[in-house]
């Protein structure tokens, strides 16, 4: 497209990075060569361990000096002269960092220094590279915050990072990175930690400023949807190796390499993959629901003032009613802070509920103590998001999977080992793996171990809290397949908590969309996703990036820059009754009556 007209700003040749690990040397980036053109977005795509982040840090000399060995060439053209980055001293490189090449990172919550004000952090970068007075730097910083569409920019200068939301902090990072008008902006997974609606805002912002300043963007990401929406050219990496490169259209429509094809095929695409309904739940109404929840509320006290009195409460879950039937998958979807995880935990009495009733197989279990719940735990299991943190590192994985069998006295001592072996094979691992420790497995394998542990005592329900979010797409696809086949075989119900609408569409029979602690829309998955009725569901679906450059339109749409309001309410505030209406006669499709109230009020793009 732009390959012939735009000048090359950065030309990388034979870039290799290796790390010394004791006596051995591990090469994580192998002889990468590529060009970055002025004003284009080059997406560097790869799964975890592909070396994409390490490569970008190597360009700026940000890798630990002692252990990393960088070789090759990286020519940066600035003001007509060529500079070879990799051979520069740290002192000369410092003049490039933040000045000619700027970076933003994945985690906006931790990327800003907590003890310095936003203004100080913006101004120190400006003052390092530009011959400006403090007051000039201040004005430039304010105007950069305005460019980044941060409302009340002048007031933000004196604020500290903890006073801003994740999306706002990422805007500050962008303002900071672009303040010195760099030739290249390296954005390392800039939207991965953000909710989809915020992700859309940030991608659009980066794109607008890129055009405005003619900055080249190196967008490092694992998300093919983001690539299709935002990139001009793509560079695919795998385990440090170059796989292929080309324009977005080329790579998506005619991927040359088998790996790129697998990668693209693994991406769940919204609106394409409806789940086959399970036969056993055809007559929903006849079956006794496993979970029957009515008007459930979970509130957390906020203590304030001199005497720590409760003046307000976080309404984490607000008047939620739902049913989970045997053998079905119900997905809870929502953005961070919507209360979906809290709801999942409240169902198991892991967090105390403040009002409403929870029935499990017809029995009222509301407010049951831990000891009363214990016999029931056998029937309800959980899988968590982080497979690294949810396995005790000091126990063998065999012992971990065996634990529930022992606890609930499911089979005799002699049978137990054999049963664990069967479970390992059932989830696609080998029985020989039993004697190994968690750190010897990859993320995907660990999640399989967690699944084996969850199904060990043959539960009726599994609550899966974001259990796929930490996995690469190709691994994700395999784990989805495993969960589905297990469900069909064992008839387990799944309460699937997720923020990813495309995955939810693949896996769930019914979906409940949560917003500020309430379910705003609930019904058959295909119906809710294809014909969303509630304004929030519509907004959520619109923001999902489409992994198809021919359909990508996120950057051209006007975007709502509003943020999710706070769920903290005063104790004196009256909470309106939450009503939902079924809008269909066949099946179910409940929509909250407050759709108009939640509708985006300010569909404006420029807040500044």
């Amino acid at each position, binding site marked *: 497209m732009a390959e012939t007209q735009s000048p090359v700003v950065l030309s990388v040749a034979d870039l290799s990075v290796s790390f010394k690990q004791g006596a051995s040397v591990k090469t994580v980036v192998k002889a990468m060569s590529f060009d970055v053109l002025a004003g284009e977005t080059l997406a560097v795509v790869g799964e975890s361990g592909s070396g994409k982040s390490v490569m970008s840090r190597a360009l700026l000399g940000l890798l630990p000096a002692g252990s990393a060995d960088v070789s090759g060439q990286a020519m940066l053209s600035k003001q007509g002269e060529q500079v070879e980055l990799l051979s520069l001293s740290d002192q000369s490189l*410092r003049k*490039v960092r933040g000045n000619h090449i700027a970076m933003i990172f994945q985690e906006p919550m931790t990327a800003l220094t*907590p*003890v310095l004000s936003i203004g100080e952090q913006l101004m120190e970068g400006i003052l*390092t590279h530009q011959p400006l007075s403090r007051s000039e730097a201040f004005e430039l910083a304010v105007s950069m915050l305005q460019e980044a569409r941060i409302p009340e920019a002048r007031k933000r200068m004196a604020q500290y990072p903890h006073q801003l939301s994740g999306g706002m902090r990422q805007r500050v990072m962008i303002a900071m990175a672009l303040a010195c008008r760099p030739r290249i902006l390296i954005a390392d997974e800039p939207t991965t930690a953000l909710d989809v609606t915020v992700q859309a805002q940030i991608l659009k912002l980066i794109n607008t400023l890129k055009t405005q300043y003619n900055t080249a963007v190196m967008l490092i990401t694992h998300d093919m949807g983001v690539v299709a929406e935002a990139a001009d050219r793509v560079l695919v990496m795998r385990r440090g190796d170059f796989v292929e490169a080309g324009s977005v259209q080329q790579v998506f429509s005619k991927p040359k390499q088998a790996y790129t094809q697998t990668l693209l095929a693994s991406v769940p695409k919204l609106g394409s993959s409806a789940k086959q309904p399970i036969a056993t739940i055809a007559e929903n109404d006849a079956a006794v629901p496993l979970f029957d929840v009515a008007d459930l509320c979970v509130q957390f006290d906020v203590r304030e*003032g*001199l005497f720590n009195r409760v003046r307000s409460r976080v309404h984490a879950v607000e008047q939620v009613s739902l049913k989970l039937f045997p053998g079905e998958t119900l997905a809870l979807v929502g953005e961070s802070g919507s209360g979906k995880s809290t709801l999942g935990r409240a169902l198991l009495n892991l967090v105390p509920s403040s009002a409403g009733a929870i029935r499990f197989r017809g029995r009222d279990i509301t407010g049951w103590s831990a000891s009363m719940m214990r016999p029931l735990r056998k029937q309800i299991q959980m899988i968590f998001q982080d497979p690294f943190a949810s396995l005790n590192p000091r126990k063998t994985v065999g012992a971990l999977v065996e634990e529930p069998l022992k606890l609930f006295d499911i089979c005799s001592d002699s049978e137990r080992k054999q049963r664990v072996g069967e479970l390992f094979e059932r989830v696609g691992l080998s029985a020989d793996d039993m004697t190994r420790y968690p750190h010897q497995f990859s993320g995907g394998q660990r999640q399989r171990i967690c699944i084996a542990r969850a199904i060990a005592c043959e539960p009726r329900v599994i609550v899966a809290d974001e259990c796929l979010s930490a996995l690469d797409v190709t691994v994700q696809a395999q784990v989805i397949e495993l969960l589905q086949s297990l469900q069909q075989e064992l008839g387990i119900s799944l309460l699937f908590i997720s923020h990813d609408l495309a995955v939810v569409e693949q896996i769930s029979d019914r979906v409940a969309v949560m917003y500020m602690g309430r379910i705003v829309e609930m019904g058959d998955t295909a119906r809710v996703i294809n014909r969303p009725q509630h304004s929030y569901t519509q907004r959520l679906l619109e923001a999902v990036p489409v992994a198809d450059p021919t359909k990508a339109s996120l950057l051209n749409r006007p975007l709502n820059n509003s943020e999710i309001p706070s769920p903290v309410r005063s104790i004196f505030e009256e909470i309106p009754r939450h009503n939902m209406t079924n809008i269909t006669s066949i099946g179910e499709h409940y929509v909250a009556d407050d759709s108009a109230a939640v509708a985006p009020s300010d569909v404006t793009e420029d807040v500044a």
Partner: protein
Amino acid sequence: MTTYLLQRLMSAALTVWITTLAICFLIHLVPGDPVQIMYAQSATTSPEQLEQIRHSLGLDRSIIHQYIIYMGKLLQGDMGVTIRGQQSVAELLLLRLPNTLLLTLSALTLAIVFGGVSGFIAAYKQGQWPDKVLMTGTVVGISVPPFWLGLIVLSLFSVELGWFPVAGQGLGSLVLPAVTLAACQAAVIGRIVRSTMIDVFAQDYLLTARAKGLSKPKVLLRHALRSGLIPIVSVLGMQFAYMMGGAIVIEYVFSWNGVGRLAIQAIFQRDYPLIQGFVLCFSMIVVLVSVAMDLLYAFLDPRIRQE
């Protein structure tokens, strides 16, 4: 910030009040008759005199009544008189207190400077030889009992080498006890600073600061150290309390004329009013210092300062 401040002051007042309760009832925890034990060494005291002393100490009244009298006097600054010599306890403590504060505060300063610098260097050079050397040093510092270290430095630097006076109250005499008292605390602070800074060095925001093109001192001091100070300051208050305890022994070893040495003498002489006064005085200092540290903490942490 004001709310935070008021909460701290309230809990400080509560702590002091609980201490007065403990002090007042402490005397009854002694097995047997406190008055007889106090005067056990002087056989000449007659039973009538003992009764009179018991009455003057208020020990013949109910516990509640005793506490009310004790507090009433305390609020007027009257901590009673010593059994040996009938001196005012408050005056005696005030006379000796500056010496103790001079010793503990100079030891604290030394400990912060040495512990802070070595912990920071060890964290920066994590896993390399400076880290290993410094951390081995801290193990020694923590393991060696202060009284033993005191005797060793005393015999080495004062007796053998004659660099410092063996006893006395001048600045020259301050060096050895202050260093001895600081040694153990410097080791503890060094380890705390090291682990805190290792944590801070791994934070994303330092990468952001480096990617901005800031110089190394700016990254290390402005971004890393300022963030690291918050958790470090939060433990300093407690470290000071330990140090006050250590000062009692050190003052005795080096014959430093402070409150701690006075307390040990009082304990040997069963001088209860003096012991009570000493305990109250020490706990008030510890409470004051921890309030000061809490204030510093709040000032350093914008999350508290801005409230």
